């Protein structure tokens, strides 16, 4: 039996005394697009943060490429081949657009993504490479954040709420680039509140509800009723 690229097994996560995740399990195969959906506060971002090493966790609760990585440290995450596109984009404001991309690739890990390839994927960024990252529009900032993550040539890229606060046309534009990212061999986990967007873009869906996996399955096979029951808990 071949092991999944990412294997989350019985993950618990806490903010102080508050438990945010209860025994969450999830598998991501190499080259797959997996969507994690759920209402506000369901634990989606916490799950991504845990995978990125930003939360305390049992080491064996998160295995990546067969290696137990739960609990970080976060600065090793990139070297292991995981990149996070954080919620709210969080570009570095005192760095230019190009510097933001360069710092994403500063470990110099080998792979298909270079500065030139990022500019090919998002030509808008090439025109604005010398601007401060704060001078970009929301959509462009999102592209820069995705580009910054790709620059580390990850095997797994985690996208937290990339559609948040963006115009629908911009969201469609960004999602249209997902296949070219996956074609280069990276698996993608997307966290979304927009269910339709998530279902169309992904092969596999996990629905979280109050810190537990309420539903999991292949994207096309889940019925609307099952999803809304898992989403709202009714």
């Amino acid at each position, binding site marked *: 039996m071949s092991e999944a690229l990412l294997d989350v097994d019985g993950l618990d996560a806490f903010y102080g005394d508050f438990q945010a995740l209860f025994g969450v399990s999830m598998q991501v195969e190499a080259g797959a697009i997996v969507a994690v959906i759920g209402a506000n506060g369901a634990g989606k971002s916490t799950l991504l943060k845990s995978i990125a090493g930003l939360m305390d966790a049992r080491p064996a609760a998160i295995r990546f490429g067969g290696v137990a990585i739960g609990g970080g440290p976060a600065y090793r995450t990139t070297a292991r081949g995981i990149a996070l596109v954080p919620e709210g984009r969080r570009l*570095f*404001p*005192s760095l230019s657009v190009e510097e933001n991309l360069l710092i994403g690739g500063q470990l110099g890990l080998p792979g298909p993504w270079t500065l030139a390839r990022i500019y090919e994927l998002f030509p808008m960024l090439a025109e604005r490479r010398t601007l401060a990252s704060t001078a970009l529009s929301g959509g462009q900032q999102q592209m820069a954040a995705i580009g910054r993550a790709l620059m580390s040539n990850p095997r797994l890229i985690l996208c937290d709420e990339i559609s948040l606060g963006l115009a629908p046309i911009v969201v469609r534009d960004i999602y249209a680039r997902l296949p070219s990212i996956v074609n280069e061999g990276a698996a993608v986990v997307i966290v979304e509140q927009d269910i339709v967007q998530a279902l169309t873009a992904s092969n596999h869906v996990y629905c979280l509800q109050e810190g537990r996996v309420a539903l999991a399955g292949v994207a096309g096979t889940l019925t609307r009723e099952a999803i809304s029951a898992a989403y709202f808990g009714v």
Partner: protein
Amino acid sequence: MTEWINVVVQGVLVGGLYAMFAAGLSLIFGIMRLVNIAHGDLIVLAAYIALVTATTLGLNSIVAMVIVVPVMAALGYVLQRLLLNRTLGDDLLPPLLVTFGLSVIIRNGLLELFTADSRRLQAGAIEVATIPVIQGISIGMLPLLQFTLAVVVIAGMQFVFYRTALGRAFRATSDDPTVAQLMGLDNRHVFALGMALSLAIVAIAGVLLAVRTNFDPAIGPARLIFGFEAVIIGGLGSLWGTLCGGILLGVAQGIGAHIDPGWQMLAGHLAFLLVLAVRPEGLFPKIH
């Protein structure tokens, strides 16, 4: 007239030294929001290390910098990794208290080792060499060297900060330490490199101070104040502004001292208060 020109010129040259006191201080605050109260005492420590190096190895004091700078940089790295990193967090108070304690320890340690006697570093013939500019005005080689080094240090910091991967790491970590980790940057290491760079500058400043004037273990806190004033006058976050701040402070002190020797410190503080009252953000604030 030439008398006043002379006062201003000497003030400008001293200002370079103050700018170097300030540069290391503002570098650390910029990267990790740490106010290093021990900064002045570390300058004095560097002066004593230079004294020991110069006397035991029989080196010229200026040449001793080659040894003092790496020693202080290494000390900075270790100090940050072992002690100061543990104090950093959301609260500004712990690093303030710990560096205050450090300041007391360094001062008393130096007092124990070297007594309260005032010392001086010898730099040889360069100490008395001068370049005549016009009738009545001449510039000392040593102050000129100090000022030139200050400009080189500030330009070097500017280059490191805005043109190198290390500078990019400093700015990114300062912006958002959490996301910086996800770029593969270990904050503890980045902060330690920042402190190493800061103390390397402290080492240069300490040696130059000790060649210029007498020093004893107790003079650190006053250098810290000069450093603070130069940073605030120039505007936080602007390196060239810090140089201007140092120069303004140096000139104000020079003019004060010329009117009445007792007014040297007072004139500097008044210039500082004046800038603070008129432009609280400093003369060249960094615009975000």
